[in-house]
């Protein structure tokens, strides 16, 4: 019994001190001059869905490193990419800076996108 309690205690402590995934949730850009809104939902299970004007266009998985994100998705022939995550405005806004991404189309889109947390 004592052992179980100790184990549960350790697990709870680990969870308490595990870094919180600040990405989880829905993020959206402000409307572009043409009125397009780009967004992404980062899920707890490390999957994500990207969309434009409520139309999903990309599904993928992500891994978090120290202030970096590695993504692999349905577009770009499944090529992996690493971006630096830059949170600002009390972590309610987010932008990406390419560390390595050979997919030019995605790189261009990611680097110009600023996302705000949807509350």
């Amino acid at each position, binding site marked *: 019994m004592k052992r179980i309690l100790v184990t549960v205690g350790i697990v709870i402590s680990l969870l308490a001190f595990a870094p919180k995934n600040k990405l989880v949730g829905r993020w959206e850009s402000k409307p572009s001059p043409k009125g*397009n809104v780009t967004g992404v*939902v980062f*899920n707890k299970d490390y999957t994500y*869905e990207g*969309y*434009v*004007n*409520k*139309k*999903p*266009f*990309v*599904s993928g998985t992500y891994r978090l490193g120290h202030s970096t994100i590695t993504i692999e998705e*349905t*577009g770009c*022939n499944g090529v992996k990419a690493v971006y630096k995550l830059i949170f600002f405005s009390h972590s309610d806004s987010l932008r990406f800076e390419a560390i390595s991404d050979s997919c030019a189309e995605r790189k261009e889109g990611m680097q110009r996108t600023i996302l705000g947390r949807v509350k």
Partner: protein
Amino acid sequence: MKKCVFIISAVIILLFMQAMIISNEPSNKQELGELLFFDPILSIDSTISCATCHKPQFAFADSSATSRGVGSIHGLRNTPSAMNVAMQRNFFWDGRAKTLEEQALAPIENPNEMNLPICEALQRLKKSESYNSYFKKIFKDEPTRSNLAEAIAAFERTLETSNSQFDQWKFYQEPHAVSEAVKRGFMVFNNKGKCIQCHFGANFARDEFRNIGLFNARELNDSGRAVISGDPKDAGKFKIAPLRNVAITAPYMHNGILKTLKDVIEFYNDPAKIVPNAINRDSLLAKPLGLSDQEKADLETFLMALTDKSFDINKK
């Protein structure tokens, strides 16, 4: 007394009719565009409107391989859906228009479609008391080439759909919005089927032109994009078709040669089996995909899940 009742009735009818007319009056360019889209006034013999070929019940596409224009003349290519065009950058199968405004006027003048020179169309609209007043009210100008295009394009931009089962699943994060078959079909779409290589994006299409193997310079002799670009390497290339609402826009391909989604999947599974002598077929389709019957069925189910709920094909 009888006379009194008659007069009152007549006044009520007149007021009712006036109210009907007022309610039909467009208040912005989108509504004016809608009125024009459904009005045969823009065809030479006043029998064909944009909606004659872009039928709302078929996601603003047509159900025949090629549509009939004025004088029952058949067009040369399949009528594409006029829905979900707001984010597109090329219009028509060969991409000859770069903007929706440019696209909007072309069928009016096309001899196989509405066959009405734009200058005549404008004369008609100016002569029409109602249209003339609508244009003046909305554009502060009489009908012109540019505001006519602007109005029709503005209406077309309202024809966006984003409420399919797929959207419920992916955007609204409802895992039970789609069946397991749809989820498997999505996997086939992204992987073994290679569909995503071309059909990528919010409307499931890249803004590109590809030769899928429906050009052999004989009975299939529409060279597509090459006529516009002047580049022989573009022979047989056509615009990648968006897939939203694809289940209700049969028949398929630039010439409407494939009647059902099953036919389309069979074609892509082994294009050389259907058109053995195609010229310059895209290298993506060089080898048969080798889809199993289950994978083909799942892929079809996935494509059906791209139908907006406003069409509700399951009720049919």
